[in-house]
């Protein structure tokens, strides 16, 4: 009886896992098939058509190293969006970490008046919907000329990322013993050396996780980029959205696979750090 129950239990877990990856399976079939008509489940022929049309893979016969280089150098839309997404993500991540570091240290190690209020202000963008601020901001940005600019998009990406990086890093500092720094100072290390040799190695693992997820939050941002970029800054999520709306499944699937690749990579890389206790997890809600 108990054994049967156990078996049912395990089979339902497998079934659940299968259901969960159905979309992923559908993505891959769509992206690598040609004329996948209803009611086929298994496509009749595999094909790279979608990728060729997106100008990511050269036409048959030109698939040499130079062929790839030439094609990509012609700057197809997907590559442009990919480069934009990467640049914005990396820039915003670096800036947010630099800005958050001192703040997180103060919040994690010290007690002072208004600390609760400050944390409350800091986390409010994680709860209130982005549509509430971005509509108003859009008009402001138009009037000061940030709208439609790369810079404006980076700036607005800081809003969902900042609270999350500050919170995660505050958690790191709450478990951090500043006496290590004091120890290094009494042993003759100056402030700069202490930061690079003592503080940084100690907080690095947590900081890397915070950075990776900050990047992911920026990477997945649709609404903010769309409204502030005003159609002039094309990123991957914008491309996914417009392709999906226009209804070509193969193209949508191919772009989506590129779009989710870093997400899966980051999950593999950080799975041991991610737990419900860490502030990192709550950031996922924003992706």
């Amino acid at each position, binding site marked *: 009886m108990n054994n049967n129950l156990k078996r049912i239990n*395990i089979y339902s877990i*497998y079934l*659940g*896992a299968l259901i*969960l990856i*159905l*979309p*992923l399976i*559908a*993505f891959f*079939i769509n992206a690598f098939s040609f004329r996948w008509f209803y*009611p086929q*489940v298994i496509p009749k022929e595999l094909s790279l058509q979608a990728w060729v049309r997106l100008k990511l893979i050269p036409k048959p016969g030109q698939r040499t190293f130079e062929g790839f280089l030439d094609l990509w150098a012609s700057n197809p839309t997907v590559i442009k969006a990919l480069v934009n997404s990467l640049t914005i993500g990396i820039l915003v991540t670096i800036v947010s970490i630099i*800005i*958050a570091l001192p*703040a997180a240290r*103060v919040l994690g190690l*010290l007690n002072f008046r208004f600390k609760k209020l*400050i944390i409350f202000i*800091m986390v*409010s963008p*994680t*709860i*209130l*919907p982005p*549509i*509430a*601020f*971005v*509509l*108003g*901001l859009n*008009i402001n940005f138009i009037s000061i000329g940030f709208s439609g600019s790369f810079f404006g998009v980076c*700036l607005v990406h*800081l*809003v969902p990322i*900042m609270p999350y990086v*500050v919170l995660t890093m505050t958690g790191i500092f709450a478990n951090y013993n500043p006496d290590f720094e004091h120890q290094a100072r009494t042993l003759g290390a100056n402030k700069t050396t202490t930061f690079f040799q003592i503080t940084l190695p100690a907080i690095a693992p947590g900081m890397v996780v915070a950075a990776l997820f900050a990047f992911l939050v920026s990477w*997945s941002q*649709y*609404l903010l980029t769309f409204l502030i970029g005003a159609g002039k800054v094309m990123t991957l999520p914008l491309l*996914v*959205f417009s392709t*999906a709306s226009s209804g070509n499944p193969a193209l*949508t*699937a191919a772009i*989506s696979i590129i*779009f*989710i690749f870093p*997400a899966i990579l980051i999950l*593999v890389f950080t*799975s041991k750090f991610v*737990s*419900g*206790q860490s502030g990192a*997890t709550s950031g*996922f*809600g*924003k*992706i």
Partner: protein
Amino acid sequence: MGGERLKIVLSLTPPLLIIITLFFGGIFYGFLQSLGYQPAIGKYELNFSAYYNVMFSERYAKLFWSGLALNLWVSFASTFLAAVFALFGALAIRKTFVGKTLCNFIYSLNLPMPHLVVAVGMIFVFSQSGLLARLAAQIGMISSPGDFPVLVRDKYGFGIILAYIWKEAAFFFIILMSVLQSLGENFEELAQSLGANRWQRFRYVILPLVMPNLFSASIIVFAFSFGAYEVPALLGVIYPQMLPVMAFEFFLNPDLNARSEGMALSIIIALIVMILVVFYFWLTQAKIRKD
């Protein structure tokens, strides 16, 4: 001591400045616009007519109230169902078995997945020519795509709910796994030795232990699904329409007068979320006081 205070102020100013100017500034300016302040078209007087229009005018009232109902239904249903699925998944998966690591990974896979992609995935799987419809046709359950129920771009928001379940169940799952892991099985073994059966152990031991975390995660999920744009924009229909999509479309309307209505809608969404969060904090604080 003065040096320390200066350090605190200097460290906190940059992130606060970003949040206050961009986030609160944006909300404030949006609020002004919702009151009819639109220098671009020469409107400076402040009133609540946009709010009145959105909620009670003949033109928009039906759209608004049906949208609000859809919003509430979608947020409640997806939060509740995602939490339930995650709870059963987490309870089932925590014992050791073959392929546990892989299953764990798959169950967490949707966590870093952008909402946008999950929505697209729902179209691929649940539309009338999607993967499931094909499977159903293959085993002879349906004969034509039209026989498959409308699950995406449907007026009940099923597609939207499915997308949120897909995505947020992973979020609940991670949180529950870590809570269960840190609790260990001692409490359950104790309860078992005191005579609690499987159901009683779930109802009187596990559930109360994970409830605080489950509840706060629910607030995050509810708040998010209430105000998010991408998923309903891709998976919703024109009527009834979820409020964030409606606000967005008002805003992009070439008629600049509709802008105030769009702003009013977004402020209403934010207000509802805020009331909910305040209520949640009040509830937990009251509980802490009681304990």
